[in-house]
């Protein structure tokens, strides 16, 4: 074998730029070499380089092209797989001359190489499926017109509200008649479960830690404003990461759902704060699974565990915080569901709804039926495969899980069979607003049987301009290098995000969704109560899907 001489490069072990998901298009003629793009790139995917090149020049009184050799400065894409271009386009954002932009490369072979060191590709973000989801294919086809005049979305009164909490069946209400009026029979001793009225779009569980301080603060401010000023009872789930103690003791805690997950992060300080709390939280969510990485636990990478996060979660600074895939103290569904729900209910004096969240799965009905028999179970949240996350293995994000539409539908129809469709609210999550159709996706899920939806990614994108998309753009939430400052604990990055603007955008997003929901419900003749399970209003352009969802086929 001929020895390497040092003069011959080993091109065989270099990747060509065509293997990369995004290719940098840099225009030499526009670039003024200010260096802002290379400074801002979160992944070090571009670098300034010096080249010695042969160029053609024309000059003089009678210009004649001639070759010259010259040292020039260029911007170059790095061919190291670890420093791949994520397509975030922060370079385009900062470039004063529109000289640079990443271009999606559909031929990329990224997944062939993004496993160096024997580690599978980990990322944040979404499922990377740009196709139209089932939710986006659902159409509202029952339009009131002549036999039933449509309502006026602008002028009629609408009540776009839902409930979380176990609702007693009418037959079990502890009521008696006195002087022609119904009164609650206090002597019956019947437990009346707590119920909260909410806006049907909830802000899904995103933890303090996964989110940066200004992002979380912005959302929290927006939620408080929506409740207190706009009168729209939006609730937000804390995610698994505890809750700021000061907020815990404030009156605003009533707008938040506290999540307990398998790592129990933050619950030590929550339990210690209990005697000092002046208000109850909106609910407790027990996370057993999530749509983005079903069967896998949460993960907060060490670089994100700064002092604030460590204090809230009650852990040392800068250590990886992996949550186990399941609640380790539980060994069966009876344990998980019954004891945990009852323990949490008891901790809060049976005054707040406690419900579990699971990943979308074929076994959802088994969980559902367990809950249906548990008088303390307040709801079931199912997070479909399109759910997003801050950190997960690519394979979990892309390939694990169950789509939400049929999962919610089969659970709802199962409840209908038992006559419990109004007893146990279903909360749908995962992929709502994936293509921007927040209100339409919400309305479709409600008509399939959901009482409310939980939305995370759409909120991040709409309120804080998250750059991610279904073409694996950006999606580096796990690295702590979020270029928008949404999912990072690096002050240099999160200072880019203005919490007031996040709050303002959240208010705009929810108010516009409220209007759009009315615009959907009004022509369908529904205004007084949410049209939960109004499946005759829906159609889809695929016969198999129509059959599976038990709705009509329209083309």
């Amino acid at each position, binding site marked *: 074998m001929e020895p390497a001489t040092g003069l011959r490069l080993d091109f065989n072990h270099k990747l060509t730029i065509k293997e990369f998901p995004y290719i940098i298009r840099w225009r030499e003629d526009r670039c003024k070499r200010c260096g802002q793009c290379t400074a801002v790139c979160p992944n070090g995917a571009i670098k300034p380089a010096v080249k010695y090149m042969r160029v053609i020049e024309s000059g003089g009184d009678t210009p004649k092209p001639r070759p010259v050799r010259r040292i020039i400065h260029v911007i170059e894409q790095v061919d190291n797989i670890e420093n791949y271009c994520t397509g975030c386009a922060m370079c385009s954002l900062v470039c004063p001359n529109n000289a640079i932009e990443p271009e999606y490369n559909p031929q990329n072979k990224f997944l062939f190489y993004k496993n160096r060191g024997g580690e599978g590709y980990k990322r944040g973000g979404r499922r990377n499926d740009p196709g139209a989801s089932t939710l986006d294919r659902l159409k509202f086809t029952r339009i009131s017109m002549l036999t039933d005049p449509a309502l006026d979305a602008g002028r009629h009164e609408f009540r776009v509200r839902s409930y979380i909490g176990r609702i007693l069946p009418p037959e079990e209400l502890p009521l008696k008649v006195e002087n022609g*009026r119904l009164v609650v029979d206090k002597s019956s001793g019947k437990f009346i479960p707590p119920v909260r009225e909410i806006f049907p779009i909830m802000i899904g569980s995103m933890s303090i830690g996964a989110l940066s301080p200004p992002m979380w603060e912005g959302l929290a401010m927006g939620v408080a404003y929506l409740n207190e000023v706009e009168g729209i009872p939006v609730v937000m789930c804390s995610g698994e990461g505890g809750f700021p103690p000061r907020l815990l003791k404030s009156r605003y805690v009533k707008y938040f759902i506290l999540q307990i997950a398998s790592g129990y992060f933050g619950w030590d300080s929550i339990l210690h704060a209990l005697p000092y709390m002046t208000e109850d939280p909106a609910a407790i969510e027990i996370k057993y699974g999530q749509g983005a990485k079903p069967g896998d636990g949460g993960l907060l990478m060490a670089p994100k565990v700064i002092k604030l996060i460590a204090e809230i979660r009650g852990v040392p600074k800068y250590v990886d915080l992996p949550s186990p895939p399941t609640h380790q103290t539980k060994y069966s569904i009876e344990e998980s569901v019954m004891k945990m729900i009852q323990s949490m209910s008891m901790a809060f004096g049976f005054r707040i709804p406690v419900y579990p969240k699971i990943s979308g799965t074929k076994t959802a009905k088994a969980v559902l039926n367990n809950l249906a028999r548990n008088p303390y179970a307040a709801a079931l949240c199912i997070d479909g495969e399109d759910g997003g996350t801050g950190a997960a293995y690519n394979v979990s994000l892309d390939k694990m899980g169950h789509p939400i539409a049929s999962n919610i539908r089969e659970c709802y129809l199962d409840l209908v069979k038992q006559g*419990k469709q109004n007893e146990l609210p279903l909360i749908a999550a995962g992929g709502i607003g994936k293509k921007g159709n927040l209100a339409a996706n919400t309305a479709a899920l409600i008509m399939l049987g959901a009482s409310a939806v939980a939305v995370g990614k759409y909120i991040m994108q709409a309120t804080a301009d998250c750059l991610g998309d279904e073409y694996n753009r950006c999606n580096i939430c796990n690295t702590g290098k979020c270029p928008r400052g949404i999912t990072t604990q690096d002050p240099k990055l999160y200072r880019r995000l203005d919490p007031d603007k996040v709050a303002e955008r959240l208010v705009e997003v929810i108010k516009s969704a409220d209007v759009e929901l009315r615009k959907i419900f009004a022509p369908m003749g529904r205004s007084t109560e949410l049209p939960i399970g109004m499946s005759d209003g829906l159609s889809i352009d695929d016969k198999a899907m129509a059959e599976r969802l038990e709705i009509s086929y329209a083309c």
Partner: protein
Amino acid sequence: MCRLSAITSSKYFSPIENILALETMKEGHDGSGLGLTLKDLGGEFKDLKQYPILSGICSRKGREILDAYMEEVGFKLIHKWRPKIKPVKGVFRRDYYFAAVYDYPDEWKDKTDREKEDFLMNIRINLRRMGEQDESIFVFSFYPDVITLKEVGDPLELAEFFGLDKDNLEAKIIFAQGRQNTNYQIYLYACHPFFIQGYCTMTNGENTAFVPIKEFLMSRGFPGYMGYNSDSEVFAHILHYSVRQLGFPLTYYKDIITPLKWEEIEQRPDREALSLVKMSLRPLCIDGPNMVIGFTPDGTCFMVQDAKKLRPGVVGGVKGKYALMSELCGLDKVIPERDKSKDIYPMKYDMVIVSPGAKEVKVWNQLQG
């Protein structure tokens, strides 16, 4: 939009009065059907009040099946009314229209009224199922002191067809509906009024919340909550469910189908109970436009509107005779001598209740409870 004509009186009267009222509202129905429910019967039924009456239509084959079944169960036929059919052009004549009075099987005679009601309903459902597929048997009601007649056609022509003008058929409460068929096929079981165990309603309008309401009722485990060939049938079943099954006073029917807002509930003396009712019976909330006229087993008649769109409806009359109509012209036809200034047009919070025997009318306001 269908036209409705309900009359409640302290004296017996002929259903032809309802039909003539419907005739004045003719522009509002297209002859796609007539439904008649008579309660508190006079004439030949006057002395048979404790016996259940089976009302329906059979083919020849269906009649044999029905008779054999009733005999097998142990019912004894004690009286039978058959309309004196006069063929009318445009009305398809079926083989056998009847209202048959039976005595209970021996083992059922000493049961409670509630048990008897369930028994009668189950018999009716069995008969319906036996004859539904080949349309050999239609049964509309099986209950003491109630007769139901239904057929496809124009109400006035059907009255002539059934010979109602010459018959001595009469009652103290009669509900009649002239159908304007909209989005469902013309089918006898889709024709109002709908009756179940002494509770009866008829509606003009369209029920946009039909599917969730239907699913909720069907999942109550009560065999009578079936059929639903019309989206209006649920109104009768909600009435039955709230008053008979849940034991709620009648006015809560309004609270269930058109629930108040939370801030309105706060003003009600029964706010605590009403809050629970609002949540637990959320699936039974209607979203109009609907006007519902109904009666309960004690002979109380009522009229309610949906909470937003409202359909025409008026109640008026004199002591001893009141009419609940979908249009004023119908009321003028039936009780022209009344004080028109006292006519009541119920609005979104109102429930107009006419007491048994048409003694008095009161307007119950939902806001005040």
